[in-house]
């Protein structure tokens, strides 16, 4: 399948990429291309110009900066999944990255592209939401920071404006006696999440939960943080029965979505099982130190 014709420009700096986008209304950023090229090939999208940022070195890399994890927009899923620092301190993110597509897709696909694409059934937004990620967005006017809670507005809709480029996402560490885990129920054909859950637990000196976080993806039009479940976990020992009890109200204030593959009730049921499992896994890992 061949896309509609488009022009192509390679940017060697962020400034050059922003300038190229500004010159041509409707122009799109090309990074790994693993969300955009399939859309163009299927002619679900047409673009006048692709601005290739793949060679902009300043946008790459996975690094720890002042204790925070900073993932550049051009980091490949494979780099995140394989990073020792991410696996140790931001385990749910490494696990989510290892679930994206397949090995070939993870070789090319980028974190920035995935987050900017805004697929509600994708893996990374759920993990970034768990870690309260702060996304850096560049435009001709400079840089702005957008919190993960404000970045995804709906299916394939984000806070990115015309001519803006997502450059990096920053995530603070969970702290001592804390750990995280990611669980996914993939659609058997597409591999996308029917439901995915990222959870984190921080324990106090007695082994009880001081803080819990639960992010749910795939089940609603935008990934969400399950505030009721997070609150219900505080003070308990995170064993499996306690976790199952805490997630009873996982969808408080949310409307799970149904489709021809999984009804809303089924999604909610699976999400509760996976949330309890992810919390128990995070709790066990936190206790093990």
């Amino acid at each position: 399948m061949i896309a509609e014709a488009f022009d192509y420009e390679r940017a060697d700096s962020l400034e050059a990429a922003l300038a190229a986008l500004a010159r041509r209304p409707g122009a799109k950023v090309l990074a790994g291309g693993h969300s955009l090229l399939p859309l163009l090939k299927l002619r679900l999208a047409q673009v006048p110009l692709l601005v290739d940022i793949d060679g902009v070195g300043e946008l790459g890399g996975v690094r720890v900066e002042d204790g925070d994890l900073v993932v550049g927009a051009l980091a490949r899923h494979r780099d995140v999944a394989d990073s020792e620092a991410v696996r140790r301190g931001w385990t749910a993110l490494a696990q989510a990255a290892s679930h994206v597509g397949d090995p070939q897709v993870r070789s090319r696909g980028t974190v920035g592209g995935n987050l900017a694409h805004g697929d509600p059934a994708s893996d990374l937004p759920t993990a970034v939401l768990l870690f309260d990620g702060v996304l850096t967005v560049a435009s001709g006017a400079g840089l702005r920071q957008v919190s993960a809670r404000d970045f995804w507005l709906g299916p394939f809709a984000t806070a990115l404006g015309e001519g803006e480029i997502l450059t990096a996402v920053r995530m603070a560490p969970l702290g001592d006696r804390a750990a995280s885990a990611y669980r996914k129920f993939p659609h058997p054909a597409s591999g996308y999440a029917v439901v995915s859950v990222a959870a984190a637990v921080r324990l106090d000196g007695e082994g009880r939960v001081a803080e819990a976080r639960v992010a749910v993806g795939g089940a609603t039009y935008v990934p969400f943080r399950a505030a009721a479940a997070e609150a219900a976990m505080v003070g308990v020992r995170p064993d499996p029965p306690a976790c199952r009890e805490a997630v009873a109200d996982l969808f408080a204030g949310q409307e799970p979505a149904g489709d021809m593959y999984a009804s809303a009730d089924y999604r909610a049921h699976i999400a509760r099982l996976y949330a309890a499992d992810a919390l128990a896994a995070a709790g066990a890992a936190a206790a093990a130190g």
Partner: protein
Amino acid sequence: MQYRVLMRVNGRPVERETEPRTLLVHLLRDELGLTGTHVGCDTSQCGACTVLMDGRAVKSCTVLAVQADGHEIVTVEGLADSVDAALRYGGLHPLQEAFARAHGLQCGFCTPGVLMAGADLLSRNPDPSEADVREALEGNLCRCTGYENIVAAVRLAAELLRERQQAGAGRPAAHAAGGGD
């Protein structure tokens, strides 16, 4: 619009003028005649079009030829030459040899892509478990075999590579090229 690309394909420099929308797989097949790289689903699912880009397995139906500009591509035609002669047997890469010996294919349509995904795995993991192999081949679909012999073939290739690398390391360099081709 035409765009000039310069890349290395199987070790040789290649320069072409191409439309930006041309996919890497079409440049390889239609321009360079490297038809060992197959187009199966054309939707980045099946993996038949897998090639190595800078050593990493990628699906060439989801890479624009212009994105490969300045990069190193290896297709199944260049697989054998991508390893030392001492590691080959009968001119074949150990993966190719192992697929023949372990009957790792039936119709063969998916095989070039499976070999390239296997090559990426073996470059990172010289002794993969069965689970490692299955995970590495998650992006390659075979409609014939049920994967059993494919997995066995990749593990046999790993064994052949390890044996020959150890044998090579123990021999004087002057004799290390006696791999049979």
